[in-house]
């Protein structure tokens, strides 16, 4: 099947060093590689996305990527209605031959590695997890991070706090909660949030750890190196380009909708960011764990529900 264009819809703008930016940049890169045009519809919010979907569908792109959990009811419906292929997230069961495919973008494997890294680098033996909410993909990473920490250093303490139920833009809340975690002894913070993550970053930059030393930050999805002031320890990077590229290739091969896509350590679509803060020996140890995961020796199962996360972190 011919494919000349794809469209991607994101709930927020593609400048968040996170979910939206990775999605849009991934789509653009995939488009470039495959020689198809990419239509971007960003900042659509989480409300009523159907009109935009229908409008895009009218332009008959070869594929519509609905890059938000909130779009995964609407997109297949409109896709079916308009006869356009769609890709949605986090819905493995929605697969429909020639029509709907899912990509579960979960960085849990990477988060596990981040946990290993944190456990090896914490001076205080306490690490913190801050999230701005509890959507499934963040739960999966929180849980895997906690597992990674525990597996590496069973005596480590994990402190966990959520800013608010939907506090994606609550930067002040991010800072306040992060400060509490630092006060509770954490010297490494694993942070997940959109706008609020900048508040976390600021807390880390301005609050010394209990021992007076530096607190460091492990980010997710994007790469904040360009705006780092020396506190970024690492990041669980997501690269969606291979996912989108595979989709386009499957469409070309008339195989779309026959399989789910994901990101994983194996093909480096999930990777841990190496920064100068990480000593080489520790990095090598972490990379060894990566090999174990890739080879299946260590198994990281995603846990998408908040309860699992709470169970893992409350065992302190």
């Amino acid at each position: 099947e011919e494919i000349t264009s794809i469209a991607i819809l994101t709930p927020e703008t593609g400048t968040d060093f996170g979910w939206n930016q990775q999605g849009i940049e991934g789509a653009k890169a995939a488009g470039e590689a495959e020689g198809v045009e990419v239509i971007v519809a960003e900042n659509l919010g989480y409300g009523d996305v159907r009109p935009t979907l229908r409008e895009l569908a009218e332009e008959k792109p070869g594929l519509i990527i609905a890059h938000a959990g909130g779009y995964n009811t609407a997109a297949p419906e409109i896709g079916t209605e308009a006869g356009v292929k769609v890709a949605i997230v986090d819905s493995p069961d929605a697969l429909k031959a020639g029509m709907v495919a899912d990509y579960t973008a979960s960085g849990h494997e990477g988060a596990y590695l981040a946990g290993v890294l944190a456990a090896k680098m914490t001076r205080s033996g306490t690490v913190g997890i801050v999230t701005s909410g509890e959507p499934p993909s963040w739960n999966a990473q929180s849980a895997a991070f906690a597992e990674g920490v525990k597996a590496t250093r069973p005596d480590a303490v994990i402190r966990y706090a959520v800013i608010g139920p939907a506090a994606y833009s609550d930067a002040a809340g991010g800072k306040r909660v992060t400060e509490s975690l630092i006060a509770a002894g954490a010297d490494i913070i694993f942070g997940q949030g959109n706008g609020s993550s900048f508040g976390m970053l600021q807390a880390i930059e301005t609050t010394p750890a209990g021992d007076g030393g530096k607190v460091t930050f492990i980010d997710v999805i994007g790469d904040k190196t360009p705006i780092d002031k020396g506190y970024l320890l690492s990041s669980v990077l997501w690269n969606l380009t291979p996912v989108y590229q595979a989709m386009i290739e499957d469409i070309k091969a008339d195989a779309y909708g026959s399989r789910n896509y994901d990101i994983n350590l194996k093909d480096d679509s999930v990777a841990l960011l190496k920064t100068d803060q990480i000593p080489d020996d520790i990095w090598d140890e972490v990379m060894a764990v990566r090999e174990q995961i890739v080879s299946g020796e260590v198994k990281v199962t995603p846990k998408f529900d908040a309860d699992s996360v709470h169970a893992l972190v409350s065992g302190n």
Partner: protein
Amino acid sequence: MTLFTDTFLIALLAGVVAAGVPLLLAGLGEQLSEKAGVLNVGIEGMMLGGAYAGFLVAWATESIGLGFLAGAFGGLLVAALMVLFCVRLGLNQVVIGIALTLGAEGTTALLHHVQFSRLYPRLPEVPTWRIPGLADIPIVGPALFDREPVVYLALALVPLFAWLYRRTHLGLAIQAAGDKPAALDSAGENVLAIRALAVLGCGALVGLGGAFMSIAGAGVFVPFMTHGNGFIGIVLAMLARGRPLWVLLGAALFGACLSGSTALQVAGVDIPTDVVQMLPFAAVMLVLLIAGRNAKLPSALGAAYVRGER
């Protein structure tokens, strides 16, 4: 390792202040405006205006003090529109209030998009003033008496406003402007000037609250970062029945609930976060259910004053 170390308790208490101060400023501002008869639904917008302007100036001039000033000015600027449309021209206060909130949300998000969205500049830590003696009290001292000057200013405003409302002619005039503007007018006072003053004062306070969020609270500006604090401010003002002290209590309650929910989570108490977040609102509803009594609002609240109209 025990969790409830001094450091942690200090952080929690400091968290109450950090979450409570913007609410306190918003509540005091709204109270001022409501007392004078202007239902200011636009304070969310004024807060965002203050948050943006404060951050912008603090970042550009590298002066925290100028930043706070600019924050107050940013809120004042949005309030000036409210004065023009609602006080001077007498347009519907709810319509304009919501319009100003939407407009400020859109404008600040646009400006942010253009200026900051690739760099997300962050400010250095805000210097604090240590109050000798008091700051040495264990736990309470570092959390309350070694703070940003704006915190002291906000707290000082509580008795100041109580004094203003009860002890000055201006206070009486403000109350008259809200309760029976025609009476104030016929006494030779300029109703519109009083209302304008109150709304501008409200804007400056609320803007300062917004600036506190962006400069001290977060150290960055992100779109929509006030996320409903203005509306809680409206609720606080109405609950307080005209008394500044009650605004302080309300803001402290909300701040304590927010900080307390963090404490519960950090301690690993397993309650769904949504449930924890409902606590302050549920607490207020419970208080209203048990001690529910007439929340008397100024009788001309929301109504434009036009001389001689009947």
